[in-house]
């Protein structure tokens, strides 16, 4: 079949057309485009079916696993696709690794090195037990995240725009330094022993639950696909994004134990970001599983934080 590749402004991206087998897949098309345009490797390409001008519908995105035949409506030797350049891409595991490495390395700097001497706080520094436990807790958390990135998570997209590296690292690294500064401060005031134990107790429980949630999510994509399934089991039976729920409560535990404004600010911002993700995911699952044409209907569930949302 012959495929015409145009840009969104109508210009032909590839002079002439791309010639492919009738049984070719989208991946084959992407590789063919890459061969003709060295700059645009497959993960940079976003291919859609053309929409009628003025139509308010969202364009259909071509999915890599499918064959091109699925997108031709009857006329199997002709297909037109619209190309969009997503910009330079970085793989998700690499992105996550760099985001999480920052907090993992920056936080201990404030604990182990005489940072505060250079900030004007002379004199001896007494380290409270809670500060040591907080160090272990924090470092375990980010070590866990890195391990999950490489061994547990199955991503729906292979890559993310490179600009996200700077944005995400700024977020994680800045908050890491901000919190580390206050928890390890020479003038830090610890909470009661009981409060500390309750805080870390909740935190550890939720981190373990969070890991279990991630494993459940991974098994939904057992065949290595990036598709969407209805999550079931454990907390997913009552809340769509149980993984985010446990993550938020885990940070709450850390803050109950360490009690800093910085930590709570981070908790609020992180909860806000995750809530936005959760709303989008919940909406997507309800749309995909609408109960029609033999598909299951998505059950009634909390989105992220029962009993509020």
């Amino acid at each position, binding site marked *: 079949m012959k495929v015409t590749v145009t840009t969104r402004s109508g210009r032909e991206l590839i002079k002439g057309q791309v010639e492919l087998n009738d049984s070719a897949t989208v991946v084959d098309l992407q590789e063919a485009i890459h061969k003709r345009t060295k700059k645009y490797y497959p993960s940079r390409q976003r291919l859609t079916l053309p929409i009628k001008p003025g139509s308010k519908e969202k364009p259909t995105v071509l999915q890599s696993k499918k064959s091109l035949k699925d997108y031709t409506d009857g006329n199997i030797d002709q297909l037109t696709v619209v190309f969009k350049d997503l910009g330079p891409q970085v793989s998700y595991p690499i992105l996550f690794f760099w985001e999480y490495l920052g907090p993992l390395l920056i936080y201990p700097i404030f604990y182990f090195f005489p940072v505060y001497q250079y900030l004007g706080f002379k004199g001896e520094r007494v380290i409270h037990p809670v500060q040591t436990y907080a160090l272990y807790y924090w470092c375990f958390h980010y070590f866990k995240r890195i391990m999950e990135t490489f061994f547990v998570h199955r991503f729906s997209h292979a890559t993310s725009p490179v600009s996200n590296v700077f944005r995400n690292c700024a977020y994680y690294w800045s908050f890491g330094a901000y919190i580390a500064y206050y*928890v390890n*401060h020479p003038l830090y005031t610890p909470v009661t022993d009981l409060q500390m134990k309750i805080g870390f107790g909740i935190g550890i429980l939720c981190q373990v639950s969070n890991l279990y949630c991630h494993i459940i999510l991974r098994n939904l994509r057992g065949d290595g696909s990036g598709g969407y399934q209805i999550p079931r089991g454990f907390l997913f039976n009552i809340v769509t994004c149980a993984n985010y729920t446990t993550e938020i409560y885990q940070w709450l535990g850390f803050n109950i134990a360490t009690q800093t404004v910085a930590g709570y600010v981070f908790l609020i911002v992180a909860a806000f970001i995750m809530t936005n993700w959760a709303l989008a995911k919940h909406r997507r699952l309800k749309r995909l599983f609408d109960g029609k044409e033999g598909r299951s209907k998505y059950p009634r569930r909390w989105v992220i934080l029962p009993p509020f949302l």
Partner: protein
Amino acid sequence: MGFLSRTYLTIYNWTVFIGWAQVLYLAVKTLIESGHEHVYDAVEKPLQLAQSAAFLEILHGLIGLVRSPITATLPQIGSRLYVTWGILYSFPEVRTHILVSSLVISWGITEVIRYSFFGTKEAFGSAPSFLLWLRYSAFLLLYPTGISSEVGLIYIAMPYMKVSEKYCIRMPNKWNSSFDYFSAAIATLGLYIPGSPFLYSYMLSQRKKALSKTKRE
């Protein structure tokens, strides 16, 4: 747009216009009659009132009553409120400086033009072309004079921030938190570096759009 919103916005814009007209009048009168050291005391109350009314403008943007993007209004209103309350009100030592006069007059002229422009537009559906021209041209001079006055006054207030420790939170405390007003002022001055060209170029592009539209009509 609803009749109610138009009426409300008309009243809002003309009320704040009167406030700023008062500020401008008192500022110039005091400057000529008594000298720049007394300008702040003469304008303090109407200035605080007119400037604080700008809070409502953030609300208007958020609920969609006006079209201005919040990214353009928030920094401008933020810096105005900061200088009015966080600098002039909080550190009386700077009130006698001549930059107060240039500040208040720059703000006064800009706002008198802006509010009468929007007040006329809301009331009659459009504004006379000279007012449109003024609204989209006066900023060319008044933004630089206004912004320089803001920056200058923040800078002059800084030694007093350090000495007085006003608004500072020191450790140790129960919430393991700290805040240094002096450092925050440095950070704010830092924000003026990208912020000023951003706002100025935003107004330039608005000017292009607004003035070319009338040419075509």
